[in-house]
């Protein structure tokens, strides 16, 4: 089918506009972070940073306990994602491949769990954690972040598991595998993109979480994570956009890298995940 010139031009033109709209805020964040202050508070914006400076990044990382924040955030996020993947893998296999009484109930229950508005339950959670003497610890944070992403992980993985043709598993079992072996040797490798795309959501949720850690970790230098650092930074340096943007950049970079790195494999599997979402 041959398309007219116009038919060929407009999708590309639109795509460029959409691309610019998507990228500009991200670009502006990095550009501001790299500009000297004089260029940031200029009457006419400096569109491309010419004198690159890293001084704002210095201001941002000079914050007390910065590396503790980084370590805590990485620990909590990785653990929460990992645990939720393991737990969800087991559950989603059952939901996708097995027939049993109450299956529908489980699916609906996880869908409901996915809707939980965590922000409004912070005080209840705070009191539970306080009464268990677990404040200022990474353990409750990890546990609750794991729970925040678990329902989504289960439901999405269920779609991925269902998308693996049953015949593959069956033929493996014909070849003498037990069901568990079949799962490990046949299904798991095929699930890799699914695991990646679901883990991306987990990462971003846990990495971002703010209201809960605010009440659970008051001790400075204790179990505090990067969102606290970023928000305290913002109140203190509200006017210093260079430093604030440098801090935001530092906060965003790990996730940006992860997404760009994983997106190709992840997108290929997203359909499978979403069809049952």
């Amino acid at each position, binding site marked *: 089918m041959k398309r007219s010139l116009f038919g060929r031009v407009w999708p590309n033109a639109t*795509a460029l506009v959409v691309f610019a709209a998507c990228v500009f805020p991200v670009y502006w964040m990095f550009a501001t972070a790299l500009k000297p202050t004089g260029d940031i508070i200029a009457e006419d*914006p400096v569109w491309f940073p010419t004198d690159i400076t890293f001084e704002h990044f210095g201001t941002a990382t000079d914050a007390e306990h910065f590396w503790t924040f980084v370590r805590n955030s990485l620990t909590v996020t990785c653990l929460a994602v990992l645990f939720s993947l393991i737990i969800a893998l087991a559950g989603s296999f059952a939901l996708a491949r097995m027939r049993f009484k109450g299956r529908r109930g489980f699916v*609906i229950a996880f869908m409901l*769990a996915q809707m939980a508005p965590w922000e409004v339950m912070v005080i209840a959670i705070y009191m539970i954690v306080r009464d268990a003497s677990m404040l200022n610890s990474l353990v409750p944070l990890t546990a609750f972040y794991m729970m925040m992403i678990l329902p989504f992980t289960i439901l999405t993985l269920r779609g991925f598991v269902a998308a693996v043709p049953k015949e593959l598993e069956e033929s493996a079992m014909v070849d003498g595998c037990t069901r568990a072996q079949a799962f490990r040797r046949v299904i798991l490798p095929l699930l890799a993109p699914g695991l990646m795309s679901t883990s991306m959501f987990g990462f971003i949720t846990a990495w971002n979480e703010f209201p809960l850690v605010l009440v659970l970790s008051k001790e400075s230098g204790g179990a505090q994570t990067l969102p606290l650092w970023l928000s305290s930074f913002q109140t203190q340096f509200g006017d210093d956009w260079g430093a604030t943007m440098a801090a935001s950049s530092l*906060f965003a970079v790990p996730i940006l890298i992860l997404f760009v790195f994983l997106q190709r494999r992840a997108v290929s599997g997203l359909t499978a995940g979403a069809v049952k979402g």
Partner: protein
Amino acid sequence: MTVQTERPPSGPADVRKSDDPAPAGPRPRAASRAGALAPYLLLLPACAATVLLLGWPLLKDLLLSFQNLNMAQLIQHVTEWNGIDNYKEVLTGEDFWRVTLRSILFTAVNVVLTMLLGALVGLLLARLGKRMRLTLMIGLVLAWAMPVVAATTVYQWLFAQRFGVVNWVLDKLGWHSMADHSWTSSQMSTFFVVTLLIVWMSVPFVAINLYAATTTIPGELYEAAALDGAGAWRGFTTVTLPFLRPFLYATTFLEIIWIFKAFVQVFTFNGGGPDRLTEILPVYAYIEGVGNQHYGMGAAIAVLTILIMLGLTAYYLRIVLKQEEDEL
């Protein structure tokens, strides 16, 4: 490995059956007792976690909502039951209803915009050449991946009253009164920026998802439609749309719950201000509960928020219920 460790312990009578090396083939698997237990055991960790880490806080929240819990009671660990006083106060005040209405409108506008733009961009992706598609995909992924706290901060900077690039552009475009405009000073302009932010962050998910779905539409369907003399539009409505329907439902459901809970964007951008005019339900619950240290009241609003969310998504949940019946 998960599966192996959770192999159900079974009675001797069942051992032979479950250890049967090749229970495959067309022969239906005998429903041994162990086999029947397997799904429950596989689901056990997930259910245990849900009960402990979500069920317990929910129950606690429900209990708190029937208590008079303020600074003094919290500090001294005193439990003062006050029946349904919190609910009475919330439900008879006009604030709650105003916030609820605002929340629903806010969610509706954002979800409609997100789905519409997301679907259009998704279809656009399907139409692009390879190189352009990759370019756009990278752009979408970048916007999608921006952590919300960072994204909100960036939007504050873009829309800053002084030296904000948006005000500069509007001024240069001839709208001079915007040169020093404070976007946080009115309800509508705050919502405008927050909506822009949310749509910006949400469109990539919808677009990429839908694009991925369109790639799975079998080409024969279009050919068949073309043979029937269908034009591009008919092909779209008779083939593309029906095929994409489940994806659209699923993503709409997710967007509704995500946007309804858009606490960080609203709270960080302007704290629910000016004059509490941009508080949506989760923000309202937080400000009344944690902010004003009226924890019992906050818990009651939280419970009501959950109920309203259930109402908003009931339609989809019913579809899922039906769909699950037909499966397997």
